[in-house]
């Protein structure tokens, strides 16, 4: 499972068997200013490639015009605000229902380039990875020292709690194989899902890999990203999750 060869067999009849169906999931909450550009960037990048790409924007009860501005994509409107983890989970469920061969998740604030997503996808297919993380910390260019410190801290916590060694545990750019789509399930609905997902993947014996990406930090994406104070909340949730699971 997870190999490109196996993936071809899962293509629905209406698609060419030489084409793999890719679902690009973009969880979005109040991203009216950039969501249109994110959708356009993905569509433009995947046009003319061998992949059949569907962009799915999971609108997590935005109070602005996120849904209107993402009209070129498939839109799933959450009825209740669920957080980044819940929105990503909905996107993966949609991909599972529609039998996507691979899923890419991107942040809705425009910090990821679609070309990086495509490179990550091709790397995941090449090395047969079930879960591939686009790591911003292999090539740290443009990332503030505060962000690097916060990410390093959370990555260290992830390692101490779950024994998973990656360079960027909080990256939103991730590639999922069909096996990962079927198997992965997490309980966290907030940003702590990033670390929990890695833990679940490890427990499910999925192969985890990383690939360097270049994140774009604009004033907008900086204002939308997680603050280091939020990292404290994430750590609290992860510790609680780890302790609670001992009694399950």
């Amino acid at each position: 499972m997870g190999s490109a060869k196996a993936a071809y067999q899962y293509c629905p009849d209406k698609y060419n068997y030489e084409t793999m169906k890719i679902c690009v999931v973009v969880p979005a909450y109040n991203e009216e200013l950039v969501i249109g550009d994110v959708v356009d960037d993905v569509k433009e990048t995947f046009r003319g490639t061998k992949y059949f790409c569907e962009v799915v924007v999971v609108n997590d009860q935005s109070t602005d015009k996120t849904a209107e501005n993402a009209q070129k994509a498939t839109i799933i409107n959450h009825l209740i605000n669920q957080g980044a983890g819940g929105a990503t989970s909905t996107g993966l469920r949609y991909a599972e229902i529609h039998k996507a061969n691979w899923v890419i998740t991107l942040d809705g604030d425009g910090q990821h380039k679609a070309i990086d997503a495509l490179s990550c996808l091709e790397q995941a297919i090449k090395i047969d990875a079930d879960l591939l993380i686009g790591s911003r910390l292999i090539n740290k260019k443009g990332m503030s020292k505060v962000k690097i410190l916060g990410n390093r801290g959370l990555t260290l916590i992830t390692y101490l709690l779950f024994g998973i060694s990656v360079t960027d545990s909080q990256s939103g750019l991730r590639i999922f194989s069909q096996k990962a789509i079927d198997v992965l399930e997490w309980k966290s609905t907030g940003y702590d899902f990033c670390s929990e997902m890695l833990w679940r993947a490890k427990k499910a014996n999925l192969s985890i890999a990383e690939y360097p990406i270049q994140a774009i930090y604009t004033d907008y994406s900086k204002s939308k990203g997680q603050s280091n104070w939020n990292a404290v909340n994430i750590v609290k949730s992860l510790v609680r999750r780890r302790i609670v699971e001992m009694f399950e």
Partner: protein
Amino acid sequence: MRYALLLLLTAPIVLMALMNIFTQYKMKRISKQRFVQQFILWTLISTLMFASFPVYNLVSGNPLLDSSSLSLFDIVQTTAIVYIVYIINNFRRKIEQNERTIRNLHQEVSIILSSRNGKG
């Protein structure tokens, strides 16, 4: 006598917890690894309960843990702690199950409604 009373009060709770774990494992609701972890945890608790007399003697000889012999209040307190751990764990599991059900329901409804609106 007091130690026997402590054992008599806590043994049913530990037995119920162990039965729960076995049932969940047999019904394939928990993995083998989780079953082993839970089994070890509750076996440890029951061992401490069964061996409460030597354990109490051992710790009371230690200057840091020195205390008077087991009183009736201690028995009630220890039983209550074990019972509360058992109850809280059960409640937490049920709450998490409900949370998951609601989240899954919300997911499915959101996807279905979006499909009906022609956007999904």
